[in-house]
């Protein structure tokens, strides 16, 4: 739990810094550069511990999910606006809760109430007093397998995309 909370703190800090230091970098440079440099830093590890043949298919699926989530996040922001794109990303816990219920997992009522509260909180925090008024045709783009993915173009005041 502490690992995920620390990751969220780092993404939040990055978001706060993005507005100040990354506004001048075009997203078309920042996003590919982020992927490429991260990959180059991880390449020695991958070469030293290459995935076993039976792991490759699963890892490729995870790879496509992660990079697809990034790509569709930006496409959704482009199509439907920053606030809508961010809010749709925060639907992940609700979608996973729905999936758990469909699999007949037993979830306590307070957990379901907690997800609803968090979703309402995310809406209020992201949309602020402005609401989500952007083009609804961008919404389907955000429904890539739920996975966090942060950083992006300058947000409207009050909506802060993840720093990557």
């Amino acid at each position: 739990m502490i690992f995920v909370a620390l990751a969220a703190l780092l993404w939040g800090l990055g978001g706060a810094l993005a507005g100040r230091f990354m506004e001048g970098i075009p997203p078309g440079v920042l996003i590919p550069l982020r992927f490429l440099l991260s990959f180059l830093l991880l390449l020695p590890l991958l070469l030293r511990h290459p995935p076993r043949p039976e792991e490759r298919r699963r890892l490729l699926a995870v790879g496509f999910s992660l990079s697809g989530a990034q790509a569709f996040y930006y496409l959704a922001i482009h199509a439907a606006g920053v606030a809508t794109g961010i809010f749709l990303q925060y639907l992940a816990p609700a979608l996973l809760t729905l999936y758990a219920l469909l699999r007949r997992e037993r979830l306590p009522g307070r957990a379901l109430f907690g997800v609803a509260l968090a979703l309402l909180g995310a809406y209020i925090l992201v949309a602020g007093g402005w609401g989500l008024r952007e083009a609804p045709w961008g919404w389907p783009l955000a429904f890539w397998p739920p996975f966090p993915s942060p950083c992006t173009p300058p947000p409207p005041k009050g909506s802060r995309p993840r720093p990557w």
Partner: protein
Amino acid sequence: MSLGVATGVGSLLALPVLLLNLPHLLALDLEAWGAVAYLVLFGTLLPFALFLQGVRLVPAREATLLAMLEPVAGAIFAWPLAGEPLRPEALLGGGLILLGVVLNRR
């Protein structure tokens, strides 16, 4: 390892975009490269590694809920770092997210 594969796939997909933006890339100054380095290390590698490690220990549903703390942290950090005061909506929304996370603790 999955992060390495993910960034590799992402690099392949994003490389044409970077090549199209080559003039912008070459024009980046030292401060911009510092921002990119921060983004790569502390906005990508470290948090994603932490998140993927966390997903091994808690169900994905709870992990994604915890990740919703990110906008709360962003709003709090933006106050001293970007000089953006905490708005009432941020306080209310952040409080509801925190309550939702607490209610989902096992």
